[in-house]
């Protein structure tokens, strides 16, 4: 018997706005002018925030920070396509998603400032807290989607991860569960080409990340991650599909991390200026700006106003953060269990009484050594 081909697969790529701000009219998502401007404003806010956060880190006012410079379209466009009842499961690089979904700026600063209250997001914002262990949270998203499915809720879940994250077994297991149970979930890979120093080619031999979905029996699409309209449309389509009970989708947002991995990283060790320059031309904000200007939706005066408003919002966030009273040392005991076991309560009491014997409750240790990478 000769070999017979029993299956045939392809992977498509969605791109709507090109680098020069020219849109493919047939693919344009239906957005009102204020919505177009919202997308522009959120991305602008995120960029201003990232820039400010880097400065705060350098001045020692927050800790290690992971910038999302260059990836604004991914988090803003995807979050913009969701409904408030949907749930998102972020990594540490989804500040844009947090903002769009309604998390106050001060919370994000608190989190990066080493204050747990930053993760205590307001109860009307459906975001799980940041998950630092790479590849761990797609499973939570799938589980959440299964819960929504079983409880017949009109909500879907979105799990974010990076290109590095696709190498973790947990991420692949999440895809498998999503496929097997036809969970109403969108798995979003922000393929920013690097996992710290390692280029995407070190993570997988596969030509695309999108195609990984095929092995698990559902659709994977590559999307121009620097094109906020494509990101928005792909997420909206996947969300509609999930809501209609048609199962999961893997979206590979093909983008680029313009900054260092975090403030403790030095990306000049592993990538070239030329590469950076090549990607700078693909800037996601620039191309939306060109499109909106050409359409007459945005004009210079309005842009100035938007920028000024974003700067003011970020500055307000910073001052809220810095005026926040320090977290109480006792906080570290209080959220471990619903009811504190007696032995832990005793540890807490002993600790607080020890602290009260210390000179003006000063932090008892000095920090030394290197910062965190």
């Amino acid at each position, binding site marked *: 018997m000769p070999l017979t081909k029993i299956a045939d697969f392809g992977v498509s790529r969605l791109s709507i706005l090109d680098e020069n701000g020219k849109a493919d009219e047939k693919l344009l998502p239906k957005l009102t002018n204020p919505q177009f401007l919202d997308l522009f404003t959120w991305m602008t806010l995120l960029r201003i925030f990232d820039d400010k956060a880097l400065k705060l880190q350098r001045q020692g006012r927050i*800790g*290690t920070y992971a910038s999302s410079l260059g990836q604004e379209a991914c988090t803003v466009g995807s979050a913009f396509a969701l409904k408030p009842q949907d749930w998102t499961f972020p990594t*540490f690089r989804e500040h844009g998603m947090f903002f769009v979904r309604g998390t106050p700026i001060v919370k994000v600063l608190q*989190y990066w*400032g*080493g*204050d*747990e209250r930053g993760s205590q997001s307001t109860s009307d914002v459906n975001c799980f807290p*940041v998950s*630092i*262990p*790479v*590849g761990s949270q797609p499973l939570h998203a799938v589980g959440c989607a299964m819960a929504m499915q079983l409880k017949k809720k009109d909500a879907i879940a979105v799990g974010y991860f990076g290109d*590095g*994250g696709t*190498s*973790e*077994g*947990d991420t692949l297991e999440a895809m498998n569960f999503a496929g097997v149970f036809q969970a109403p979930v969108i798995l979003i890979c922000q393929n920013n080409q690097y*996992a*710290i*120093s*390692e280029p995407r080619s*070190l*993570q*997988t031999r596969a030509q695309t990340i999108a195609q990984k979905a095929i092995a698990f029996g559902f659709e994977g699409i590559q999307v121009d991650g620097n094109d906020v309209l494509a990101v928005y449309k792909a997420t909206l389509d996947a969300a509609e599909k999930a809501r209609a009970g048609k199962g999961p989708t893997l979206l590979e947002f093909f983008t680029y991390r313009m900054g260092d991995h975090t403030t*403790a*990283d030095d990306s000049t*060790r*592993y990538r070239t200026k030329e590469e950076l320059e090549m990607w700078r031309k693909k800037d996601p904000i620039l191309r939306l700006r060109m499109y909106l200007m050409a359409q007459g939706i945005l004009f210079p005066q309005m842009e100035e106003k938007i920028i000024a408003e974003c700067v003011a919002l970020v500055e307000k966030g910073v001052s809220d953060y810095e005026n926040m009273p*320090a*977290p109480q*040392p006792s*906080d*570290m*005991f209080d959220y*471990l269990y619903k009811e504190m076991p007696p*032995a*832990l309560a005793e*540890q*807490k009491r002993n*600790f607080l009484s*020890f*602290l009260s014997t*210390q000179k003006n409750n000063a*932090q*008892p*240790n*000095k*920090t*030394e*050594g*290197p*910062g*965190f*990478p």
Partner: protein
Amino acid sequence: MKANMVQALNNALALELESNPNLVVLGEDVGIDGGVFRVTDGLQTKFGKNRVIDTPLAESAIIGTSIGMAAFGLNPVAEVQFSGFLYPGFDQLISHAARIRNRSRGRFSCPLTVRSPYGGGIKAPEHHSESMEALFIHTPGLKVVVPSNPTDAKGLLTSAMRDPDPVVFFEPLRVYRAFREEVPDEQYTIPLGQAKVTQQGNDLTLISWGSMFRTSMEAVQQIAENEKYSIEMIDLRTLSPIDWPTIHSSIQKTGRCVVVQEAPLTLGLASEIMARVMEKNFLHLKAPVQRVTGFDTIMPLYKLENYYLPNAERVKEAIRKAMAF
């Protein structure tokens, strides 16, 4: 050479890569980046991509493939970027690395070293600051090492890399660049399983390891300003197997003991030390053994981490309590 712990470890790796052709270093960002703390800096350039391997981001795969390599003639030195990220590889470590010799009745072995930065004190995000050594000490078949200074780090890592069994080598983050000292240029080993009595004394035995050794030393120096206690200090260095004879003979001399660990209280290594000390030296003891530990809570984010970490004040308090009993 003058070296901090990062440089001493780098030197140990370089010398062993040179002298043992079967040694391979693998992990996330260990190649061109030289590791996020630069412990493997320059090694890939010098020894090539076949010996110093940047792997995909997958701890289970790093440890799991290391087990296969180790069983078939290589000496893998796997880096797990932070000890908080050992858990995806934990199954491979406890279900296989620790067991393959026993399971195969000695036919296969696992000469594997897993290096991982651990401990708090550097203002890192969540999962980057815990001290979970007890999980590994509790696992039969693993050895566990924690150096407290550059010189020991080099000698202990060299021993770990030559050990016939799997060794988990924890590198205290807070000590990495805290100080430099004169470290011998040549290759040398410090045997695993040997604690170091760093200071002789007659009144009390103070036991610690890793970054807490430095905190303990600080406490001893401070307390010496006013109180005339004669304190014997033990730096455990290897946490599994433990050097019990050194501990017991010290306690039989001093009759008092304080154990300092950064890890949570419950079932930390201090618990085991207290139990053994009591079993062996009951009639020698002049006071209940005291311990200074982290709390049974999650290591907090950095604004509170210094409240969590044991400090010299807490160590002094424990010493005074033991002395005053």
